[in-house]
């Protein structure tokens, strides 16, 4: 049933949106491709499972998993971006990749490499629209993803902090002249980005009910693709790209089979980049208006 697949695709896309926005934030504001984001995604997913298994009530488990993601992201900021800011730009990139591997192996050592089943703390809730079945956790993910992107955009556009972040995005040295406290805002970027990734990982764990140490990598590649398809540095572009990839993925399973997924997703990426190298919503003028 095609409509059902479209719904499923959008729900899956919501997770990609969260990961894509996490990437977009650090790239757009700090010009830094933060490779630890899949690690943060995975940590949050695994901790959702682990905390639930410990018998914590689900609201606490969720909050705990998000907190782990935010703290992990802050650790990465302290040890890569802040620490190595004066070095060549690829050094923080490589060290953030080091953190991805570190996070994965810490989880591997602690819990092993097996796929762990997440036992849902609440009964499987579905609602029906005519013949369409929508799972409530999935619907919540999608609404949350788009709602949070909306809030993020309001933050960037309408608040003094957002203006400061956009000033940093355009020119860190001008931002400093204006008295924007760059050293205070950069960790905020990492915490916000980390929370988006962590939310993605937590929702993935609850929706697909399985976690493992390397769950971040596949999702992250699709998240990066979503960001590129939508247009680098454009938050709504990440939303469009994420939803598009989710739908394409589910539809290619529907029409062909699961082996076909990567072919269609990355094929789509190449085709879009071929015709519009800046991405669907990317600016192509001289003045790049981010966000």
């Amino acid at each position, binding site marked *: 049933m095609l409509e059902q697949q479209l719904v499923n695709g959008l729900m899956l896309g919501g997770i990609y949106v969260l990961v894509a926005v996490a990437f977009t934030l650090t790239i757009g504001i700090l010009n830094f491709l933060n490779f630890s984001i899949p690690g943060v995604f995975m940590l949050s997913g695994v901790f959702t499972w682990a905390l639930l298994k410990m018998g914590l009530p689900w609201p606490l488990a969720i909050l705990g998993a998000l907190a782990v993601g935010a703290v992990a992201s802050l650790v990465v900021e302290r040890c890569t971006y802040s620490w190595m800011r004066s070095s060549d730009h690829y050094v923080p990139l490589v060290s953030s990749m080091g953190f991805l591997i570190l996070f994965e192996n810490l989880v591997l050592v602690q819990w092993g490499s097996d796929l762990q089943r997440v036992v849902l703390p609440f009964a499987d809730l579905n609602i029906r629209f005519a013949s369409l079945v929508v799972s409530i956790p999935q619907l919540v993910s999608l609404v949350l993803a788009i709602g949070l992107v909306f809030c993020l955009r309001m933050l960037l556009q309408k608040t*003094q902090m957002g203006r400061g972040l956009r*000033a940093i995005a*355009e020119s860190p*040295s*001008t931002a*400093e002249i*204006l*008295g924007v*406290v760059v050293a205070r805002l950069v960790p905020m970027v990492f915490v916000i980005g980390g929370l988006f990734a962590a939310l993605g990982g937590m929702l993935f764990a609850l929706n697909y009910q399985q976690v493992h140490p390397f769950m971040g990598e596949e999702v992250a590649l699709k998240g990066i693709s979503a960001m590129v398809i939508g247009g680098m540095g454009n938050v709504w572009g990440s939303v469009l790209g994420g939803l598009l990839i989710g739908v394409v993925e589910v539809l290619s399973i529907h029409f062909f089979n699961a082996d076909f997924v990567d072919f269609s997703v990355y094929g789509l990426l190449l085709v879009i980049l071929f015709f519009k190298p800046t991405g669907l919503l990317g600016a192509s003028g001289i*003045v790049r208006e981010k966000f």
Partner: protein
Amino acid sequence: MRGKVKALLETQDLEVAYGRIEAVKGVSISVTEGEVVAVLGANGAGKSSLLKSIYGLVAPRGGEVRFAGRKLPPRATHTRIAGGLALVPEGRRILVSLTVDENLRLGACNRGDTADLDDDLEAIYARFSNLDQRRAMSASTLSGGEQQMLAIGRALMARPTLLMLDEPSLGLSPKLVGELFELLRQLNDEGLGILLVEQNTRKALQIAHRAYVLELGRCVAEGTPTQLHEGGKIEEAYLGQDGAG
């Protein structure tokens, strides 16, 4: 000379170096409340470095900066703005991905009290009607002269008691340079102190109460414009340059 003696800004034996290159070699200057002070000198005399170290964009190698009676920390520009010291940087440094309005609001991002922010914004728009018409437009659409007005308006949004300007006349047409200096004179009449780094010596001395002449990182002369002209110090400092601008 002006009657006020209380120094608003004071540097003592300030030294700035980039690696082994010494740009400022022990410069002491002062600006009192409501005074217009010019720092003159040829290219590479250390004028901009002096301003940058006062503002905290580069850490001085030696000496100290005092503002409103307090010693300023070596870096941290936001402490300057919160205390009432603002900078109009060389090249204006407009943020072109933001609107005119957002540029102005960002100027107030570290001032102590933000209660009257909207009133101040309207006052800036009343002063610069060209900016008023372009509030919601990208700052990239402004002409060079309008960008300079925006840079000054943005610095004023910090409600400074002392405004520092780094080569504000650079790249402006003679007519706009005239308007710029008229504006600075007006701002000073309203009580604002001004520290001006300029290569346009003639214009700068028309509005300055006092001036310092820098040469190769050292202060070689100071005094009122009349004193400097009589001593022939200005011409000396520019020897080998293209005259007194």
